[in-house]
């Protein structure tokens, strides 16, 4: 209890520091919501598999702006918007090269200006309102980006939202990005969350999407880096109007604690959301994916397909809840979680949930957990593949299944390559 008080006192001092940095009412409401819950313990159902209360018993100091002139490695042929150590860095971003129809400003500026449409989009009450850590993010948000994509704009080249940490010693960052797409707009986005070196950090970031009618986003999220005891909570909030499409894939790897949470609301007819993902766990990685997909209007479609590949003492968790509201008839939802345990000490927790209040819907879920298949292994070995290579091919195949819906060949190749790199480390030891 003493530790908890310590933790909350520290967080409270962060709030004191941030409360006059724009959007005071929004922050105050969020802080009140957080204070009511406190840091979530395992008794909070949606945090049952990730004991954040214990993990965050000592919040690291709030990051302060560093202005190091870094040269960042480029993994993608994308237009990059960089938030480094909690601060949006135009100097490290490709602002000047952004195509027509894309407007970008820092969150800090947006909060200072307080434009109503930005404020209401940044934190809407209808999604994720019950989550204390998301509330904490809103109360403490330091910086980030606001991206507006004009109606009808089709942005072919990927825009990468890179949230990076570099500073030592330990630090906390609270960042938030807002991406708004006008009617019929289309964009490819990459969300990169990484540590540039082996830094200990507590990062809490949120990405908020507002998709107007018939807008479409293809999103690839990549979480990597981290060290033992580092904490990263990444929230995705998506609000889809009628006919809008969000097609996403996330790869989680690295070390430490990673929690990815998704709150999506299909708030118009014929909206479509797809959340796929793969987690590569080794060492003591703790990777939790928790999602709530809320069908509020008829004829929506949602797909969730997650794969966990867990080695050593890594721990995976998948909690998926699909809600179908009264009147959201003709909803079509399929949720699937499959896990591959490569070691006796690895753990997977699966909790799929359906809450259906409409009678004419098609919803299903499935969860499996197992080892590599002996028949498959023998088949490959009998064709000449040595044991480890046979295992790798099966693991790759298992991960690839979650990537099938990715249309961008380059991105898919990049992600497959990440899986190969992870596997090559497994073979070489």
């Amino acid at each position: 209890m003493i530790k908890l008080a310590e933790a909350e006192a520290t967080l409270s001092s962060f709030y004191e520091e941030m409360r006059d940095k724009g959007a005071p009412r929004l922050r105050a409401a969020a802080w009140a919501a957080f204070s009511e819950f406190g840091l979530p313990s395992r008794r909070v159902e949606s945090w049952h598999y990730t004991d954040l209360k214990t993990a965050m018993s000592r919040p690291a100091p709030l990051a302060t702006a560093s202005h190091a002139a870094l040269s960042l490695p480029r993994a993608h042929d994308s237009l990059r918007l960089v938030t480094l150590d909690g601060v949006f860095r135009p100097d490290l971003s490709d602002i000047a090269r952004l195509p027509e129809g894309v407007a970008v400003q820092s969150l800090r500026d947006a909060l200072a200006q307080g434009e109503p449409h930005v404020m209401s989009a940044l934190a809407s009450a209808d999604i994720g309102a019950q989550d204390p850590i998301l509330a904490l993010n809103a109360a403490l948000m330091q910086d980030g980006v606001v991206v507006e994509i004009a109606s009808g704009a089709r942005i072919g080249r990927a825009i990468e939202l890179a949230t990076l940490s570099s500073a030592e010693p330990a630090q906390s960052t609270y960042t938030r990005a807002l991406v708004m797409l006008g009617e019929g707009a289309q964009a490819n986005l990459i969300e990169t969350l990484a540590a540039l070196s082996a830094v200990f950090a507590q990062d809490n970031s949120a990405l908020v999407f507002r998709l107007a009618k018939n807008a479409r986003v293809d999103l690839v999220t990549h979480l990597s880096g981290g060290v033992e005891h580092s904490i990263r909570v990444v929230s995705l909030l998506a609000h889809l109007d009628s006919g809008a499409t969000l097609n996403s894939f996330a790869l989680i790897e690295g070390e430490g604690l990673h929690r990815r949470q998704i709150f999506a609301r299909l708030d118009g007819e014929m909206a479509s959301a797809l959340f796929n993902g793969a987690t590569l766990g080794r060492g003591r990685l703790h990777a939790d994916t928790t999602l709530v997909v809320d069908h509020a209007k008829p004829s929506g479609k949602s797909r969730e397909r997650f794969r966990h590949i867990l080695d050593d003492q890594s721990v995976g968790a998948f909690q998926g809840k699909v809600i179908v509201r009264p009147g959201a008839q003709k909803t079509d939802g399929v949720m699937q979680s499959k896990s591959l345990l490569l070691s006796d000490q690895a753990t997977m927790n699966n909790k799929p949930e359906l809450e259906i209040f409409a009678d004419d819907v098609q919803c299903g879920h499935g969860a499996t957990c197992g080892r590599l298949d002996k028949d498959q292994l023998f088949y490959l070995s009998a064709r000449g593949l040595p044991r480890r290579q046979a295992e790798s091919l099966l693991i790759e195949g298992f991960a690839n299944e979650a990537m099938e819906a990715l249309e961008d060949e380059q991105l898919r190749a990049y992600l497959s390559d990440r899986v190969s790199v992870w596997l090559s480390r497994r073979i070489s030891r």
Partner: protein
Amino acid sequence: MLEIIDLHVSVGEREILKGLTLSVKAGEVAAIMGPNGTGKSTLSYVIAGREGYDVTQGEVRLNGENILDLEPAERAAKGIFLAFQYPVEIPGVATMTFLKAALNAQRRARGEAELQTPDLMKRVKDAATSLGVSQDMLRRPLNAGFSGGEKKRMEILQMALLQPRLAILDETDSGLDIDALRVVADGVNSLRAPERAFVVITHYQRLLEYIRPDTVHVMAQGRIMRSGGAELALELEERGYQDYIAQEAA
């Protein structure tokens, strides 16, 4: 080529092979026929090196070398190929990716240069065309959703690409219609060569009308009970396996 001497194999407490002896020369096509449940598939798995089969006595030699201590992949690199009775589905792994991995793993193990993709593609395409394997099948995950006939053709395609020294065909005829059977048999016949041996395991004589064996061996109760030429298959077709089952019981 292949020499099996007094082979005893158990699975758990149960002895399946009980002193099996068999010799197959290079260039020979040997048919093994027998009733269900006599250990024909066990024999094929033991030669290929599957886990879970306990060799309690005897030897299996390939060109004079005892192979029983080798891993399945090492045996494959030495030229042993098993065409599975039930080819395994591997979702998520494109057939082409698998073929490349298998070919190059064997080449690496033998100290040969790996095949580059264009060369590999050409070889696969040529073999696929003659076996009626479509380009679409090559793009799909290995065996996933393939029909029984497609799976068997894929086995023969792999055999054609891997060019084994000893090929074991485990009930390759099961589940095939007459047209598919002909395609598969043609594939096997085109690979017959003086330096290559085949062990064709089958329950029925039908397959042997298309793949003419040099020797026929009757297997029952975990042993080879009788060996002869192609004419033995015809006799079995006529009389069935009752003599061998009765012999055992007596």
